[in-house]
């Protein structure tokens, strides 16, 4: 059969549904590409192809939805958004109906109300779960629908027994299909948004369900643990592995010294779990809350982000030296390695590029290793009694801290990765009103962090932080002389892939901290650094395919990759819901926090200078650094035995 099936294997939904496929007629003369429709008797003018749902939202008319999500292509499967369009025999799905003619829409006629109520009743007849024993209680779209539609009895029954086993095989994502409403948001997330393609709809009719490839447990397939599916699931069917009981147990054990590091992105988002609008960072309130909850020390992951910059930046310079000065082969472009979702994506889909990954560990893991060695030594605490907890925006961090190679301190470097949602739960449980906490500082000896660490949370942040340091170390000039306020704006923003060139016109003396590695910088003079930033694995895939083809991306020196759309602020452990607006608000909070820091460059952080002096000794990428702060990767491939 000569069918051109799956030309683009990623395009699993018809393009017609991505863009709604309507090509406006060539000459919409009378209306100039606009169309006036009426909804519930009110008129509105919108561009041709606008959906009824979008038009209604603009007018402040609420149409209930379930399968629709602002980040995803249209599915039109739940039918909760059904509305009446004058002249049409059947009801139409508002989320999937592009307006191309002056139609009249009614959103709450008797037919509409009855149909919607029936749909909710049907969903409940197939939904095994009790709200008060569910993680999504009070944050569940099915629950809200039931309330909005006045459900006061189960018209078509309600299951009393689970029909599916819970899949807890993954370190990161737990699947409870008993609560699944088959909205397919997770499938569209995994296939269309992330282009990983771990999960699909299997089976027909009421036997259809969401399954990983070949019906295997999620822990045994190519899932990269990004948790993006969790963030977009409307119900409790998907959630992250929960380690709060273990963390409470450590806190309750007086023999244990429990330290927590907090990353910038959860601090910029956790307020959402306490009723605040998106975009308000609670960094210092959180310090107080964590101490009150019982953590012995609160550290700032920014410290190890600065350390990452030192190590990763030096690694880049070493690769450049190898290629330009020694004329030996070096793996370019160098890829960042701080996003564990991205790392696993590469290990599965592009394992031949593992040499390009920076060997520097992520900030989370560096901190774990440093706490159980440097910190333990300095404070005379037996590392076996230290429990390290990491507050991360990320579900993949749970997998990362369980990687067997992450034990260079002689112990598990990071014992537990907590998501923003889990920590919010602990704070709620402790009865702490987070937004009203007084502010307090991080603990020594990692009290000073820099703005560079903060911006790790947003896409382009690692690149910007690395550039601030590399530029100064190499040119001997201040970044501020090149970029106003040291804001390297070209690498910021939300475009999927960004590309920047940075010519090195002059070089300075080699600073002391790098003197053992580089005789001079002359080999860099006149070079142009080519840099790129990509976020979300779908964009990462574009970049990787371009590299494979030998396209412009293959000429880059350094590429920042983040597994999640928007970077860590959109991580799979962040508060639900998520949307482009919410992620933008969180990013604004992060950049605001950066500007507020007195020290904004990693190499200027005095605590960093001290750890190299007192402990790591040989400077970045030295022997001890390699032992504690660097790692190696695993070839996984697409097919797993």
């Amino acid at each position, binding site marked *: 059969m000569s069918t051109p099936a799956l030309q683009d294997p990623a395009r699993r939904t018809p393009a*017609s549904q991505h863009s709604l496929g*309507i*090509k406006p007629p060539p000459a919409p003369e009378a209306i100039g590409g606009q169309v006036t429709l009426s909804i519930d008797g009110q008129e509105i003018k919108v561009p041709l192809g606008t959906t009824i749902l979008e038009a209604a939202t603009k007018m402040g008319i609420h149409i209930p939805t379930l399968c629709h999500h602002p980040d995803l292509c249209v599915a039109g499967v*739940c039918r909760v958004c059904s509305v009446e369009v004058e002249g049409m025999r*059947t009801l139409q799905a508002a989320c999937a109906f592009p307006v191309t003619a002056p139609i009249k829409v009614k959103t709450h006629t008797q037919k509409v109300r009855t149909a919607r109520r029936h749909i909710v009743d049907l969903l409940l007849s197939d939904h095994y779960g009790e709200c008060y024993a569910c993680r999504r209680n009070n944050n569940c779209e099915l629950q809200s629908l039931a309330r909005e539609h006045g459900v006061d009895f189960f018209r078509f029954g309600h299951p009393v027994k689970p029909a599916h086993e819970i899949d807890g095989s993954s370190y990161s994502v737990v699947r409870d299909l008993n609560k699944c409403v088959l909205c397919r948001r997770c499938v569209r997330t995994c296939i269309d948004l992330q282009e990983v393609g771990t999960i699909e709809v299997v089976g027909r009719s009421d036997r259809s369900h969401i399954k990983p490839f070949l019906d295997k447990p999620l822990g045994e397939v190519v899932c990269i643990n990004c948790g993006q599916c969790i963030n977009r699931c409307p119900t409790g069917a998907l959630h992250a592995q929960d380690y709060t009981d273990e963390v409470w147990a450590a806190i309750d054990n007086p023999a244990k010294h429990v330290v927590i590091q907090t990353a910038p992105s959860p601090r910029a988002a956790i307020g959402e779990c306490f009723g605040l609008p998106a975009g308000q960072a609670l960094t210092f309130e959180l310090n107080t809350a964590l101490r009150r909850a019982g953590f012995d020390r609160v550290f700032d992951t920014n410290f190890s982000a600065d350390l990452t910059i030192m190590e990763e930046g030096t690694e880049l310079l070493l690769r450049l030296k190898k290629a330009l000065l020694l004329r030996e082969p070096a793996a370019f472009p160098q890829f960042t390695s701080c996003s564990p979702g991205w790392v696993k994506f590469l290990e599965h889909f592009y394992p031949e590029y593992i040499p390009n990954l920076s060997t520097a560990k992520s900030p989370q893991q560096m901190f774990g290793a440093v706490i159980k060695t440097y910190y333990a030594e300095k404070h005379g605490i037996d590392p076996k009694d230290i429990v390290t907890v990491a507050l991360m925006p990320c579900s993949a961090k749970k997998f990362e801290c369980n990687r067997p190679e992450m034990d260079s301190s002689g112990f598990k470097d990071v014992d537990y990765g907590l998501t923003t949602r889990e920590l919010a739960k602990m704070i709620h449980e402790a009865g702490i009103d987070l937004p009203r906490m007084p502010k307090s500082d991080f603990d020594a000896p990692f009290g000073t962090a820099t703005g560079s660490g903060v911006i790790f949370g947003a896409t382009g942040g690692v690149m910007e932080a690395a550039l601030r340091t590399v530029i100064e170390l190499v040119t001997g000039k201040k970044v501020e002389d090149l970029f106003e306020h040291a804001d390297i704006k070209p690498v910021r923003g939300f475009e999927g892939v960004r590309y920047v060139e940075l010519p090195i016109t002059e070089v300075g003396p080699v600073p002391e901290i790098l003197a053992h590695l580089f005789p001079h910088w002359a080999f860099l003079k006149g070079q142009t650094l080519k840099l790129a930033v990509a976020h979300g694995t779908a964009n990462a895939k574009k970049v990787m395919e371009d590299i494979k083809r030998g396209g412009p991306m293959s000429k880059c020196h350094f590429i920042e990759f983040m597994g999640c759309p928007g970077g860590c602020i959109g991580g799979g452990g962040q508060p639900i819901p998520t949307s482009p607006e919410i992620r933008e608000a969180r990013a604004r909070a992060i950049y605001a926090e950066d500007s507020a820091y007195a020290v904004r460059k990693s190499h200027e952080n005095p605590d960093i200078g001290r750890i190299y002096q007192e402990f790591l000794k040989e400077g970045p990428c030295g022997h001890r650094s390699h032992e504690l702060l660097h790692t190696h990767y695993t070839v996984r491939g697409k097919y797993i035995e």
Partner: protein
Amino acid sequence: MSQLPTFTSMKAEDGLRKALGMPRPDLIAEISASGLKGRGGAGFPTGVKWNFAAAAKADRKYVVCNADEGEPGTFKDRVILQDHADLVFEGMTIAGKAIGAKEGILFLRGEYTYLKTHLEEALARRREAKLLGKEILGQDFNFDIRIFMGSGAYICGEETALIECLEGFRGEPRNRPPFPVNTGFLDRPTVVNNVETLAWAACILQKGSDWFKSVGTEKSTGIKIFSVSGDCAKPGVYEFPLGITVKDLLQQVGGAGAQAVQMGGASGLCVPASEFGRQIAFEDIPTGGSVIVFGPQRDMLDVLHNFLEFFVDESCGQCTPCRLGNRKLLEGVEMLKAGACSMAYLQELCALGESMQLASKCGLGQSSPNAFLSVMKHFRAEFMGRTHGFVNA
């Protein structure tokens, strides 16, 4: 020997020859004038459909012949393909000329694989006779046809699900709009027509629209091919003019004395004996051609049970009303059979059926409650007689 005299009387080639001699607008006008309506069940005017596709601007367009024939009780397309494949291919070629397509695809039901060689041979013969391929009949018109094998799901007969299959995806209906005439196969304008519709199009070009209109009713012109099965003496494939009453049809097939007839397959209507005077036509009892006769000995609840099991099996499972609604209707029938369905719950189920008709995403869910609702309307008294007490769900 073919059971279809009109098709047998046609002379292949003549229609195509005429079509190639006509400007495209005239060709579409001829089809429109005939009043031909889709024979696949929905009864959409074929001329209008072709006109939409012809008006759409695109680099490529496609003609698809829907030979998925999955509706329970239909088998006429199989007979047409077996005995009159040339007419069907000619209809596709004419449609290609009308809308400006160069490629036709015959979507053949998986169960009809045995017909494939026969059809490939017919295609080869046509290519040899310059009726397909480059410069058809010496004219500046290229068109070829390939066969695509379906894999057995009923839903893949729905035109947008069929297109998904053609593209290599899971067979599930798309959102409409956009419609296939605008955004179809590979996002190009695509005409999807039933086997029989295309065969009639070839006949209309040969004999003219007036000939076609000379039988049938004003709104439902022409002859329709029926697949007749069930409790009758002479099941088989028949030609009848549209507008024929159920009673007359039954008479001809030896089905007098039936208590009910299922018109249009499982998704059609159940017509009780009291309404046998009604006409089979798009304006009264619409049909894709399936006629299932139920003799007086049949238990209509068993019949319904059967249909609903079919839908519970065949729903693609994409949308809520159909995925879960058919299951509830089936459970309702089981409760009725056990005498455990209260009047109130039956009422709820009928209301649910109406919601399914309104809110389902595609024709399957929109029509699957038809049988339930019409049986409940006409035979309710009998079933409720079986109710033992009032047990609620």
